[in-house]
């Protein structure tokens, strides 16, 4: 202890900045959690730092009302579907970009990223028309496929970075040892880029989870996502603030869980594996 205190300047305030920072970051989240345990009268009536009459009513509404909890189930179904499709499509694509030179490879690689530059609203209309023609409106797969528009390019970019960090000689050594390509890819190569696959899956999950516009446009009732349900809570009885807050808390949970599992790789993922 004496060792560490020695390096601190006397009477320093270094704790202050980080404390303030965290307080400001956590304040909205705290307020959301705070609200989710309050009754509507308390939310709209008085200002209170913590619930005066803590209640679980808001959560019980969500867990008992199918129109609420189906929203979570729908969201999770299409998000997981999208994550699987995106990663499975991106793995071979990223391998090709990382290992082979072909005509226009650099342009194609850059073009992939430009897909992320257009706002999703641009694609809402063509997707709606296209999926209507195929009878896919209001299905989970429709949203999952629509989200591939920006998730596949992202996954390709992330995975390409991780794959290029693996020396090409490992591939060749495996071929010399007699590995066929599929066997090499699954047994030798995938374990080497496991963290990259994790990060790519995380980003696909995250972007698909928070995306509202396409998900709402392509669904009506059967596959309606939770974020769309949350925007439609104004009823004849007015705003149900407490239930909305509880729904918000529950929407944060899956993301927080996923972040916890990939926390060690996130920085590398943001750098698209190029650290």
């Amino acid at each position, binding site marked *: 202890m004496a060792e560490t205190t020695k390096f601190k300047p006397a009477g320093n305030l270094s704790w202050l900045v980080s404390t303030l920072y965290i307080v400001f970051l956590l304040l909205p989240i705290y307020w959301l959690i705070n609200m989710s345990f309050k009754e509507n009268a308390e939310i709209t009536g008085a200002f209170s730092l913590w619930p005066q009459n803590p209640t679980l009513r808001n959560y019980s509404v969500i867990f008992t009302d199918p129109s609420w909890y189906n929203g979570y189930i729908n969201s999770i179904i299409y998000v997981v579907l999208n994550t699987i499709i995106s990663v499975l499509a991106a793995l071979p694509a990223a391998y090709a970009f990382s290992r082979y030179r072909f005509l226009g490879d650099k342009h194609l690689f850059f073009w992939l990223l430009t897909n992320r530059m257009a706002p999703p609203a641009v694609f809402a209309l063509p997707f709606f028309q296209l999926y209507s023609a195929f009878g896919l409106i209001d299905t989970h797969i429709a949203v999952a496929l629509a989200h591939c528009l920006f998730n596949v390019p992202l996954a390709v970019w992330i995975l390409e970075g991780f794959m290029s960090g693996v*020396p090409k000689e490992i591939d060749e*050594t495996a071929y010399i040892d007699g*590995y066929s390509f599929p066997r090499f890819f699954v047994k030798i190569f995938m*374990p*080497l880029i496991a963290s990259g696959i994790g990060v790519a899956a995380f980003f696909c999950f995250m972007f698909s989870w928070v995306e509202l516009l396409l998900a709402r446009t392509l669904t009506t009732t059967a596959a309606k996502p939770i974020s769309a349900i949350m925007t439609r809570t104004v009823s004849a009885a007015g705003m149900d603030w407490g239930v909305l807050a509880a729904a918000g808390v529950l929407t944060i949970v899956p993301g927080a869980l996923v972040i916890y599992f990939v926390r060690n790789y996130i920085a590398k993922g943001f750098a698209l594996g190029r650290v």
Partner: protein
Amino acid sequence: MLELRNVAKMVAGDYHIYPTDLAFERGTLNVLLGPTLAGKTSLMRLMAGLDRPTSGSVFFDGADVTGVRVQQRNVAMVYQQFINYPALTVYENIASPLRIAGRDSASIDQAVRQAAELLKLTPYLDRTPLNLSGGQQQRTALARALVKNASLVLMDEPLANLDYKLREELREELPKIFAQSGAVFVYATTEPSEALLLGGNTATLSEGRVTQFGKTIDVYRKPADLVTAKTFADPPLNFIDVIKSGAFFQHQDFDRLPVPSHLLKISDGAMTVAFHPHHLGLSRQTEGAAPLKAVTQISEITGSESFVHLDYNGVRWIMLAAGIHEIDPDTQIELFLDTRHLMAFGSDGRAIAVDAVA
């Protein structure tokens, strides 16, 4: 026997390997010697089947294997970088070619333990390669190459990234380990001294061409041309352009050197004479040594020997002198050239006459 028949490799219109004919016998050690970018790795990749030659064919034991995929060829390769499978343990790394071949686990276990014992890896079998030192990682790669019992073993500067002690140890062991297997053993290196220590045969490479192939000591003593002589010399060769007339070499207007007996019979005319740095000395070692005058530049002392960089009438030379000599720069000194080892090359670079005694 591995045969390259007129094998060439072009990339984007440039020859990386010029049309080449080579034949390596089974059970022999063959060194590919050349500086970086000479084409050693490209040539090895063609031999292994990792790259397809642009033209020409590769034969193994009489069969044409030019288009055969590398998986189907019985080859093993070790790279300069330590290439292992990081996700597998050392044991599984060594076992991997055997697992692919579908051998039963009892015979795999026996083969892996035998190879590990030979390469002193037994205590580390349960670790993963990244938890080993560089030498141990490379030994893992070597064990994997060994256990496969390949008929063609390719090593691309396998010891270049190791410290000198390990390098000396492994350099001594490697040929012994692989000699028993009866494989064609190919070893690429940039260091002439390594080629000489390994022995066997040497093919010298320069800018994508095989300049000479033969027994290592023969290539060293009797280079066919100037390029080979340059490739196979470390420290670099010294040159002097002369005109031979009768019993003397005339160098411009400066010096006259007596022509040594082994060069007396060649015809008169312009030629390039080359000699190794250790054939220059500060004192007259032999009867036939010719005195010369040169200006010193830098002296490098390696412990028991000194490299003295010289300016001989505008030509840069290096002298390797025994003992420690700290000579001030820009001093004119007298040297003695042991002319018995002079090599003479014609203006086309072909050897006219080379050294009889090394």
